[in-house]
């Protein structure tokens, strides 16, 4: 009996603890409130500013849909709209079969070196979108060594845009389709086989239906990426106008904010559509696979596997070439006449008034966005998912957190211009500072990180908080001692995702930088505009090298550090 339960902890301890109790709710509430304020300022108000700007005239008077009417009355601008739709549709039609076959090879064959092929397909994720456009200029441009292949057509226009977009969107499509094809029930194939079904019929009746939601989702994502991408048409579009370059010209060139807002609103349509389709599709995809499904295990088949190796080699080579040529060219003396090695193109002060500064600004911005963003997003996801105070506010915060993914970078950037540059807004002191670039970047990539954090948090036993409460341990102690250590791999994922995207993004920040805060990706656009293509390629190479270095570091950390210090994960 001496052992326990005769409640010996002194009463004063429990009383002192008890008096601390209401503050737990207060802290949770304050965190939710902070998150709501952050998201209101960083996404809701800028979006509202864009919306209102599109229905106001230059003097700020309400004009209804007059701006839209003016837009559609302008044949040049309407041409851009059709150009954009055409480019996006064509790129989608090309990239989806390419990516599907590639993903099929990765998931449904016994081809060798799958991880390597997967990594190669994902390479473009580490580069700014316009890097492949720079490569195309070297390959097919006026001095390109394969220019003859175009039969007199120019690469500066729809051909170049589409090829570059296919390269840029390929990894996004592969990622989605690998997931879709990976979620398969092997038993269905065994049943079909046992019934003597032909291979083509199995493909038609089992494989395709299983992957159809992935295909739909990938198609919408690619279409949206293409239609809202700014870097590629800027570099290789020539005289071929698209919506994204129209916005840039209207806002930066002509200071025509109303027209910029109208185009921004139009760009919002496919993105919102893609987002809605993706949400519906995701729900169905999950329902497709029962808990008892057994993953499909491909059996080796020489001829098929060899065929897919050849296919993947060709595609991976093209993807690698689309980035590699720019890297190569950045070390070339004078393309294509003097191919000797040089590092002169990395002497940025020769080409860019800010010299190397844009690169360091980018690294600094990416590091800040990564660290601050991870803290904000993970803590935010935690209070939304695991605390119980203020259910309405938490629901609202979650809604706001899910918004940014439906807003293309260019549109978000425009919203920031309208909101943060407004003379009435006291926050306009942040305009063109590093702060706004960091906030913008965190917001731009908020949703994916938020979902990653939520997914990790949902996998943790939901009773941890209940247990802590019963033991009178405040939630922040459990957050620190248990939740964060358990979620460390996901936290690292988020940090790396934010860093790499911060390094490569162009579209949102192009409206927001200042003389002192020019980023590397923007510097590429400027050097390319000024005709210093080799220097632009050199800067792009710096970005890719940095992104890949961070990713490699991430993998090493994951493999060695986590494996060593998180042995409690395994038996």
């Amino acid at each position, binding site marked *: 009996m001496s052992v*326990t339960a005769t*409640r010996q902890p002194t009463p004063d301890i429990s009383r002192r*603890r008890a008096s601390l109790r209401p503050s737990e709710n207060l802290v949770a509430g304050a965190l939710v409130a902070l998150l709501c304020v952050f998201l209101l300022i960083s996404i809701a108000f800028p979006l509202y500013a864009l919306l209102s700007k599109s229905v106001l005239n230059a003097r700020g008077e309400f004009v209804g849909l007059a701006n839209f009417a003016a837009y559609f009355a302008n044949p040049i601008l309407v041409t851009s709209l059709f150009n954009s739709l055409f480019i996006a549709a064509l790129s989608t039609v090309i990239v989806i079969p390419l990516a599907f076959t590639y993903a099929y090879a990765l998931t449904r064959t016994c081809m060798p070196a799958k991880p390597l092929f997967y990594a190669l397909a994902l390479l473009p994720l580490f580069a700014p979108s316009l890097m492949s456009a720079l490569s195309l200029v070297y390959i097919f441009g006026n001095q390109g060594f394969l220019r003859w292949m175009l039969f007199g057509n120019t690469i500066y226009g729809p051909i170049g845009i589409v090829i570059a977009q296919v390269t840029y969107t390929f990894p996004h499509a592969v990622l989605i389709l690998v997931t879709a094809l990976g979620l398969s029930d092997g038993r269905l194939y065994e049943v079909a086989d046992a019934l003597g079904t032909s291979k083509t019929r199995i493909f038609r009746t089992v494989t395709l239906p299983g992957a159809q939601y992935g295909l739909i989702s990938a198609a919408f994502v690619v279409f949206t990426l293409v239609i809202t991408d700014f870097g590629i048409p800027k570099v290789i579009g020539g005289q071929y106008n698209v919506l994204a370059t129209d916005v840039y010209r209207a806002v930066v060139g002509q200071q025509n904010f109303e027209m910029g807002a109208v185009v921004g609103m139009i760009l919002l349509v496919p993105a919102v559509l893609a987002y809605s389709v993706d949400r519906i599709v995701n729900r169905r995809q999950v329902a497709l696979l029962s808990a008892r499904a057994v993953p499909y295990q491909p059996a080796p088949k020489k001829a098929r596997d060899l065929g897919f190796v050849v296919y993947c080699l060709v595609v991976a080579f093209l993807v690698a070439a689309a980035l590699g040529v720019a890297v190569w060219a950045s070390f070339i003396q004078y393309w294509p006449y003097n191919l000797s090695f040089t590092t002169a193109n990395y002497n940025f002060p020769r080409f860019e008034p800010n010299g190397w500064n844009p690169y360091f600004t980018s690294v600094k911005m990416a590091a800040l966005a990564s660290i601050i963003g991870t803290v904000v997003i993970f803590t935010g996801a935690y209070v939304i998912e695991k605390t119980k105070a203020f259910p309405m506010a938490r629901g609202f915060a979650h809604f706001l957190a899910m918004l940014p993914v439906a807003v293309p970078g260019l549109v978000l950037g425009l919203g920031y211009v309208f909101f943060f540059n407004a003379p009435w807004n006291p926050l306009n002191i942040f305009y063109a500072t590093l702060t706004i670039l960091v906030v913008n970047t965190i917001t731009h990539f908020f949703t994916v990180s938020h979902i990653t954090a939520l997914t990790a948090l949902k996998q943790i036993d939901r009773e941890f908080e209940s247990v802590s409460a019963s033991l009178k341990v405040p939630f922040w102690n459990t957050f620190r001692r248990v939740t964060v250590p*358990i979620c460390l791999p996901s936290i690292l994922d988020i940090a790396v995702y934010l860093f790499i995207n911060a390094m490569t993004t162009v579209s949102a920040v192009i409206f927001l930088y200042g003389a002192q805060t020019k980023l590397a990706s923007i510097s590429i656009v400027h050097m390319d505009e000024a005709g210093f293509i080799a220097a632009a390629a050199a800067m792009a190479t710096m970005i890719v090298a940095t992104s890949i270095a961070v990713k490699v570091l991430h993998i090493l950390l994951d493999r060695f550090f986590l494996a060593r210090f998180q042995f*409690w994960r395994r038996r």
Partner: protein
Amino acid sequence: MVSESMSADAEQPFLQIDNMTKRFGHFTALDQISLQIHSGEFVCFLGPSGCGKTTLLRAIAGLDIQDEGRVTMNGRDVSLAPPADRDFGIVFQSYALFPNLTVAANVGYGLVNQRWPQRRIAERVAELLALVGLPEQGEKYPVQLSGGQQQRVALARALATSPGLLLLDEPLSALDARVRLRLREEIRDLQRRLGVTTIMVTHDQEEALTMADRIVVMNHGVIEQIGTPNEVYARPATAFVADFVGTMSFFEGTLTASNQLTVAGIDLACDDDRGLSAGTRVTVGLRPEEVRVRDVAPDQPNTLQVRVEDLEYLGAFCRARLRTIAGDVPILADFSANLMRDMQITLDRTLTVALPASSLHVFATPIDELTAEEAA
């Protein structure tokens, strides 16, 4: 709180719940629940899934606050208090052990926060681990333990701060049958030794019958019966309780006079007609083990002729499906292997059986309402 409980009147319940109601949208999970639990008692909330037992437990813990009603713990109104302001330890079906902390750190989790000195925490943790039968296991991580061992650790963690109330939310459901039986005894033994007031939620009637001092049988958010295991089993208050706890055959009957009823033309006497008036349609329940075959003379009251329609072999005994010759009423009966041999009970034999008046349970619910509910 401690001094309060010491000086508290012995008659005062440790935990009192008054008119507790909890709704989820249009679904009423708890409907006007009132309940008293005394200090040192082991109480089981028993019922099918969705009956509200877990909701009630979580409301007592303060994890999901009720919409209406009052919770009084140790004389203190804690109706709206957050969990940390209530004095309890809790164990979940999923164990909910922190995977990144050692067993010792898990058990000492609540103590660290109370600013106990390191040495005292270590002593206390060792003491608790010995108590739950896991001495020397403190340095291991939860994944290195079996399910039963993990649940012991969870129990030790819940007891670490010496709470006045121990809440167990289906603690044995995730374990396999043998471990479950052993841990059942251990928990009961531990609870007796420590004298800690305990509430356990379970859907397993056997668990409730073997472990509890009192059972609270719940269905559709209301309490059907509160009583000792014996009361609940032998004198079920409602047809639902009779059906959920143990096995019972039900027949449609009509009361004919005081403690007299008729089932399909057979006149039977019962001990308790619940004061219902003659002519009332009732449901009559009978436990299979109450059907008597030995020493039955046909002229005794409550005897009838039955035919053995089916025999289901269940090891130590046989469950027989009998059908009355007169009236064609099906009856379940359990016959021991002994009885089967002695009385030479085989398929299609005709037997004379007696249904003791004390074993006929009368319920006011008409049988068609009962079966309609089962179908739903």
